[in-house]
């Protein structure tokens, strides 16, 4: 069943001096439970695409349909995770992860239990009363993951969530995010410029070409890889051949443009 449909989506930004078309002709269907990655060179409109799906900005043409309803503004159906954790420094970890529920006015005891339990699963229950500055980068990003999942969104939007971390934390967090998302049977869209990360985590990779951004190609990751934990995928033989294939495709698109 399709959870998200992008129909002929285009986004152009206007200013008095210029107008810039960030993306055009985007047609895409994402199935429920799928893990999709958008990769491409910088300036190919990956983040614009994600902002469109989140409802933070609206397309200039075409429409985006989430669960049968066109997106017109941000909905609690989608969760958003950014490059940096953007935890609110003046709130404790507990207040940070309960913020979404507070906004939605869902403050019953049962509702609050979900994020607290999730925090426990990620091994951070003892940090409940701490403040963000007392945590390491990897821990903070884990808290951000809990915050995103606190309102139980169906569709998760991940905007390069690992790019600000050191390599070791990044690999660990990839496994953690992957297994958490799979365990909760969520649909996810990951934006990244890291080919390896895209292969390790996704079911399907959408390669975008730049200026204006459009879909250039699509790669399906074989089932036996997409079911494995990202760290394990990185060590397999198929990983390398896929990497080469996508790399070449990206190179050729940059040369032609």
């Amino acid at each position, binding site marked *: 069943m399709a959870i998200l449909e992008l129909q002929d989506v285009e986004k152009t930004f206007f200013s008095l001096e210029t107008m810039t078309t960030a993306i055009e002709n985007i047609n895409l269907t994402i199935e429920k439970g799928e893990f999709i990655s958008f990769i491409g060179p910088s300036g190919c409109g990956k983040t614009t695409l994600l902002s469109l799906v*989140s409802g933070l900005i609206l397309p200039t043409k075409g429409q985006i349909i989430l669960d049968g309803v066109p997106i017109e503004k941000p909905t609690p159906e989608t969760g*958003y995770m950014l490059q940096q954790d953007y935890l*609110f420094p003046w709130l404790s970890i507990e207040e940070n992860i309960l913020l979404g529920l507070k906004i*939605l006015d869902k403050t019953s005891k049962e509702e609050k239990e979900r994020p607290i339990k999730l925090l426990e699963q990620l091994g951070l229950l003892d940090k409940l009363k701490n403040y963000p500055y007392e945590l390491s980068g990897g821990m903070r990003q884990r808290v951000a993951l809990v915050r995103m999942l606190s*309102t139980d969104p169906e569709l998760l939007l991940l905007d390069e969530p690992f790019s600000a971390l050191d390599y070791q934390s990044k690999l660990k967090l990839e496994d953690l995010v992957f297994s958490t998302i799979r365990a909760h049977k969520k649909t996810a869209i990951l934006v990244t410029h890291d080919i390896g990360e895209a292969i390790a985590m996704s079911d399907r990779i959408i390669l975008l070409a730049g200026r204006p951004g459009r879909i250039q190609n699509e790669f399906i990751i074989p089932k036996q890889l997409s079911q494995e934990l990202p760290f394990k995928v990185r060590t397999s033989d198929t990983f390398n051949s896929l990497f080469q294939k996508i790399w070449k495709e990206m190179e050729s698109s940059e040369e032609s443009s």
Partner: protein
Amino acid sequence: MKNHRKEMLQEYKKKEKKKRGWIKLSQLTILVSFFLAWEVTTALRWLDPLLFSSPSRVWALFLDRIQDGSLFFHTSVTLFETVLGFILGTGVGIIIAALLWWSPFLSRVLDPYLVILNSMPKVALGPILIVGLGPGFTSIIFMGALISVIITTMVIYSAFKGVDDNYLKVIQSFGATKFQSFSTVIFPACYPTMISTLKVNVGLSWVGVIVGEFLVSQQGLGYMIIYGFQVFNFTLVMLSLVIIAILATCMYQGVELIEKKLIRHH
């Protein structure tokens, strides 16, 4: 193994304590020698005691004025006006800043007027205030507020605008309304700026109120200064100055207390 660390810690603490002691001592020395020099130079008539008074004269006058109750009266009038002007100026400034943040249209419309009002010397409006609101404490309070309100608006508004958009993205992705975005993100993110504005405004509202009292010339510490000046009683002027210095410092300390409560984790 661990013992030598403990010893070093003790040593470090001792050193640090000593350093702090020296700083406090030096501060006290400056204060005492200032008053001492003032007393001695005027007693020896190196400085004219008619113009510069002396600590002993100020002290005598202080006791005298406490007994007849006039000092308490004037001080409380001024303190009341200053605190009210301070709260009014800061509060209204923050409210206007919030309105400007809320409506970009309004902020673009009002931008040139804010610039003009900001560069205007507010105390020059004093006579108009007195004509409009009457020569009483209302116009003096307005003076104290007016002098800080525009700069507060400008500083806080630019702080509101400067909050990282990604924080807004986070909250909006939960479906937050504009009001929720303001109250949970924009406002608390600007506590540090608000505190530093409060600190500046303590000084500004004193300026406004004292000038206001100069002009109205009925009561308060500003009146005591201008009256002492006119009848050539500089002991009265000095007494007022010392009291203002003490009160302004207390207010500043009060703001720092708020700061400690409000900004524990920024």
